[in-house]
């Protein structure tokens, strides 16, 4: 707080405008809800969300807890990052474990081994048990065409369901979060950000990320056109062989469905150049679970997924 900046004269840059909008959304939720929570996976979008929340309430602490739905197949580097950030900012972290649900029979492992779809039940239980009334997610409308229809404030019924035909119109900056007991609101402060915006903001703010977002050598094997990391989650199969490659991750999720891409981008600046030239979307390149059907994302969202 020793430097004094001067206000820009020619309008806000796109990053300033997106930042101001997201901060506005965080503050609206803080002002209107009793028990909000921020979904935090340790991925870049949730890291940017947390960074924005820290700025929105500075110099006071973030008035929300964090919630992580742990599939049991997470990258160890990401879990370590998560725990470090939580400790550094004195945050409260709730963890819902998919593994516990499988172990005691409440969920059954899918034949294809994907655990992302299994997150929905533990997520809804955690929301219900903790009586969270607003749940921040890092979803962006540019990710997927069902998400392009998503509101910033998204009403969910008592089953966590999303009904695209019954969405409230969202006008001006007037977000309507009124809900009845049992319902909750999903809030997406990064709705209007693109993958490139997120990376440019990370560069500008010098935000630290888990190392797997940058090029590194790793044992991988090919499946469905993606490079997967071997692990206790079940890969590789007998017919699949591993090799050592220079790769990085564009998204970070469950190891069973998140693929790495060949990359030499070792810095944020190099990642930005790489993304700007890429002809593949983030999810198209690296997510197996969206390829299940034409409406995979929409179907999961209707059931309560993000």
């Amino acid at each position, binding site marked *: 707080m020793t430097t004094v900046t*001067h206000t820009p004269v020619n309008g*806000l840059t796109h990053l300033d405008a997106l930042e101001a909008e997201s901060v506005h959304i965080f503050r609206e939720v803080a002002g209107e809800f009793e028990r909000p929570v921020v979904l935090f996976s340790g991925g870049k979008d949730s890291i940017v969300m947390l960074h924005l929340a820290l700025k929105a309430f500075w110099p006071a602490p973030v008035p929300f807890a964090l919630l992580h739905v742990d599939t049991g197949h997470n990258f160890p580097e990401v879990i370590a990052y998560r725990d470090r950030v939580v400790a550094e900012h004195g945050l409260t972290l709730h963890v819902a474990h998919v593994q516990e649900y499988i172990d005691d029979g409440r969920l059954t492992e899918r034949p294809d081994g994907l655990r992302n779809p299994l997150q929905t039940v533990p997520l809804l239980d955690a929301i219900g048990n903790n009586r969270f009334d607003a749940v921040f997610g890092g979803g962006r409308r540019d990710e997927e065409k069902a998400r392009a229809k998503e509101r910033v404030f998204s009403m969910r019924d008592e089953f966590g369901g999303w009904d695209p035909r019954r969405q409230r119109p969202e006008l001006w900056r007037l977000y309507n979060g*009124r809900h009845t007991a049992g319902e909750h609101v999903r809030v997406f402060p990064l709705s209007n950000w693109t993958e490139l915006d997120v990376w440019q903001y990370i560069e500008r703010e010098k935000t630290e990320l888990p190392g797997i977002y940058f090029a590194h050598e790793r044992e991988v094997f090919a499946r469905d056109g993606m490079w997967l990391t071997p692990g206790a989650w079940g890969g590789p199969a007998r017919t699949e062989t591993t090799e050592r490659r220079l790769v990085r991750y564009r998204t970070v999720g469950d190891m069973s469905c998140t693929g790495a891409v060949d990359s030499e981008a070792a810095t944020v600046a190099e990642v930005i150049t790489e993304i700007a030239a890429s002809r593949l979307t983030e999810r198209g390149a690296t997510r197996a679970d969206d390829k299940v059907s034409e409406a995979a994302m929409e179907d999961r969202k209707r059931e309560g997924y993000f």
Partner: protein
Amino acid sequence: MSTTTPRRPVETTLLRFATAGSVDDGKSTLVGRLLHDSKSVFTDQLEAVDAASRRRGQDAPDLALLTDGLRAEREQGITIDVAHRYFATPRRRFILADTPGHVQYTRNMVTGASTADLAVVLVDARNGVVAQTRRHAAVAALLRVPHMVLAVNKMDLVGYDESVFASVEAEFTAYAERLGVRAIVAVPMSALAGDNVVEPSAHMDWYAGPTLLEHLETVRTDGDPADDPARFPVQYVIRPQQGAYLDYRGYAGQLASGVLRVGDGVTVLPSGLSATVAGVDVLGTASDAARAGQSVTLRLAEDLDISRGDLIVAGAPPRLGQDVDATVCHLHEKPLRAGDRVLVKHTTRTVRAVVREIPHRIDIDTLDRCPGDDGLHVNDLGRVLLRTAEPLALDDYRDNRTTGSFLLIDPADGTTRGAGMAGPFIESEARRA
């Protein structure tokens, strides 16, 4: 991979715009063309569209599949709801509110236009200005979208004839001027053939204006000049009560208009108390001022009782009172009638209110007044008089889109029933013409 030289993206400005057009005007093709020709469609998205088109037995990829995201939309071949699209050129980032042209157009267009800096109204060159065009223009004018583009599409089907374009432009401009719209740019184009959308047309050398994309890239959006009255709705009070910030008390919010500088005298509404700006913190960094659009935290020199819902103002003050006279776009299937109890959400303040009277509906085709006795039905626009339980500090919507707008909310189930704009202005402008 790409054969173009990777260009390092830079920080640039953001334009929010909305498209309006009826189903057969070629809006999906226009949006597809903008995304495709600005190289914002990715290989995997095109492959998915190719595969889906083939499954349905279509020969060519159907670009509408790029934008119709929901299962029901693909099954029925219709667009249900506003979708947001994102694309960028080296000069600007764009957020496109893609509003469907179907039955619910007023509701959807109000949603898309409420945050737009610019509206694109699409017209089929063969049909010219039709009732639907007038509705789109009226909604954009009512919502005070600062810039309007008339996209005269399907010029290829009228032989790229300059006189066709000129007559559509003249008719539209005359109508829009009656609505008080001044900044109109008309572009003759063929979205299907790619004329004047992103690339200049080889068929219309009589047209000297910009392509649609060129105009979107260069139109000025830095409204809210410094001499506008300052409006700062208080969202949240920040009081750390710990460490080095034991005595810190800041009012967090997004400046709706104008500029607030350290040392400025301000008034807090509804209390009417005076104060002085002692500090402006821009997300953790002290600044000399806050400008419109910034989310900041204000510190005041005086120790006052200020909370969420208060409005900090400088310059000409807004009206403060419990009687609200507004134009309402009704958005819900349940009609709005005199005597209804509602909640009014205005900036960060929500108050109880009752609908006192609905003097008239507005026929959006003719801008004529109709009797309002039957109330407002879904997609209706009308003048509504409200009485609020507590005073509201309202600007005219024509002066300020943030402090002049409000939601009508159903107190029973929390649904949004209507969009309100303070000041009954649209019919007065139409009469003046």
